[in-house]
């Protein structure tokens, strides 16, 4: 077995354990908030892995990322997912809970900078209503205003930390922000550059099968979510 396969197995095992830990602490519907102190800590990697792992248990899962640096882990990026405006209303229909399939909603921080707290709450409520788990990738919390708003709505919060970096002031700021938002932080997930890099190339690794929906029906659902978010942004 190659090193990459070993790594993929290891990552899949760790995410399953993390999923069990999350499911032991909260019950669907729930919002899982994943954040970090710096852009390189791998919050996107962690959030995507959590969403993928949750979706494998046939639970409806959506990944909401506010990280502008988020790179979707698919070779063929679904149309309209990245770089499009978020709709002001999210309407997501019933989806077959196929294993490993989940939706991704990408919100550009620049575009959602003016979203009000009320709208955010409505969006979260709607996402909760239509999904079992909403996984929010807030990225660098200090730079992400929407992430700060979503933190207060999270049922649990998870902090990503990339091993091998030095302590920074951002760490303290992130902790202060989480404390102010009264988030229930259940723990830290340690990442490393190799795992993050592997996450970026994951399309070639079926072991961590967190593939984006590629079927036409799933693509349509995704488009509707994006449209709703875009409307939401415009309305604000």
């Amino acid at each position: 077995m190659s090193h990459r396969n070993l790594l993929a197995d290891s990552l899949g095992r760790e995410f399953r354990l993390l999923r069990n830990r999350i499911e032991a602490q909260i019950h669907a519907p729930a919002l899982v908030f994943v954040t970090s102190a710096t852009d390189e800590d791998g919050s996107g990697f962690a959030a995507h892995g959590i969403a993928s792992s949750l979706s494998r248990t046939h639970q409806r899962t959506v990944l909401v990322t506010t990280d502008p640096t988020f790179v979707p882990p698919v070779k063929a990026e679904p149309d309209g997912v990245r770089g499009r405006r978020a709709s002001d209303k999210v309407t997501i229909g019933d989806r077959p809970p196929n294993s490993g399939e989940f939706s991704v909603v990408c919100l550009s921080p620049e575009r959602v900078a003016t979203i009000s707290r009320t709208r955010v709450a409505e969006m979260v409520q709607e996402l909760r209503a239509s999904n079992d788990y909403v996984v929010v990738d807030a990225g660098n919390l200090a730079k992400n205003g929407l992430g700060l708003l979503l933190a207060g709505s999270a049922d649990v919060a998870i902090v990503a930390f990339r091993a091998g970096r030095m302590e920074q002031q951002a760490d303290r700021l992130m902790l202060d922000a989480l404390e102010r938002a009264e988030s229930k932080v259940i723990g830290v997930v340690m990442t490393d550059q190799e795992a993050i890099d592997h996450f970026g190339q994951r399309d070639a690794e079926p072991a961590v099968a967190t593939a984006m929906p590629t079927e036409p029906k799933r693509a349509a659902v995704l488009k509707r979510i994006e449209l709703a978010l875009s409307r939401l942004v415009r309305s604000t």
Partner: protein
Amino acid sequence: MTPQRFLDVIRRHALIVWCVIAAGLALMFVFRNAIPNTYVGIAHVVLVAESGSARDPSVSIVDLPSIATSSVVLERVRNTLKLPVSLINFKLGVGAAVLGRSSIMAVSYHDLNSGRAIAVANGLADELSRYYDEISTQRYDVDVDRLSNEMTSETHKIRGLEEQLGTIISQNPYVASDQSINTLSEQLATLTAQRVDANATLQGDRAIAASLAPNSNLSKIARHEILTNSPSYVAVQAVAATDNAQLAVDRAGYAKGFPGLPGAVAKVASEKAYSDSLAAKALTDRNAFSATETGAIAQRQHQDALVAGDESHVQQLDALIASERQRLHDLPLSGELFNQLRSQRDALLTEYTSLAQRRANALANRAEASSLGSVVVLDRAIKADTQLTGGRTRAAILSLILILSFAIGSAFIVESLDPRIRRTEEIEQLYGIPVIARFGAKA
């Protein structure tokens, strides 16, 4: 420190580790000639007839290495070869190991000098052979030594008794005889008879000496011989005799009033006076000689010597008689002491004979034990057997270990100085929340 954590640190600082190893190897290469070579000399010994019945069963092949490296053997070899090393350092260079299950043992010595390594290895093998013989026959040696010491003690005692007996015999020679009283009595009687004879001889000699004592008659003879031998006295005496005869004639022929008588009388008187003076002069002359007188004196002196000898003989006999009487008087005491000492001496002689017999048996047993088996030098160390060992090889191994240790240590030192956070504990300390998942090998 888990193995994973150890490997992670090494992997993270692999460059430092390799740099340190490279630098260490370079230093090793530069200083490779600074370490002297060590040579080893190896000799082989074999234990022959190990299971001999007469050999000490407590000594076997498994004991040989301990014997070869014992302080006794090493000290002897060190003194014999005059090695300039302490006993402790000497022992560090010595090796002894039995080859498998055989009765052959290799004795080796490491040294910087090849010749000394060979000499010491051979010396150890030879000394081991000798010392093994010593300890394998030691029980007989102990017996022999004890018997020898005992015999020496007995000899001294016997010698002392002999001296005492000799003293007693010298004081009383008859004490050693069974019929000493009879012998002494006979000797005393003989001496008494001899004394009687000697005393008789003495008395006879004394009588002869008394008869030879000087008297007037003999002096007159000597006077006559002296005067007769004087010509002037004889001539004057002849003239005086003539004149005296003429005077007598004149007196007979003439009356008292004859005028020639006074003159003749005066002449005769004058001649007589002159004759007397010549006689006195001749007698007082130093050269006056009388053969008769001289012979008498010599005979008298001879007799006096005989008398003196007789007296001495008698005195000697008296002393002997007194001594014999004293011996006879002391005989009971001396004889008893002599008998006691002689009994003791006889007992010691018997014991000495017994000890000598036992010692002879012990010597025979020891000889038998020695002949039944021993440690034999099978293969002496020679020049060709000298091997290059230890020295650089050992130093290289130690250096590699040190270099690796230093390299690994450097990695951990750098790791400890690295402010980056890699460990779970550090993250938990930073955030105050637990780590619930680790993704990736470095996480």
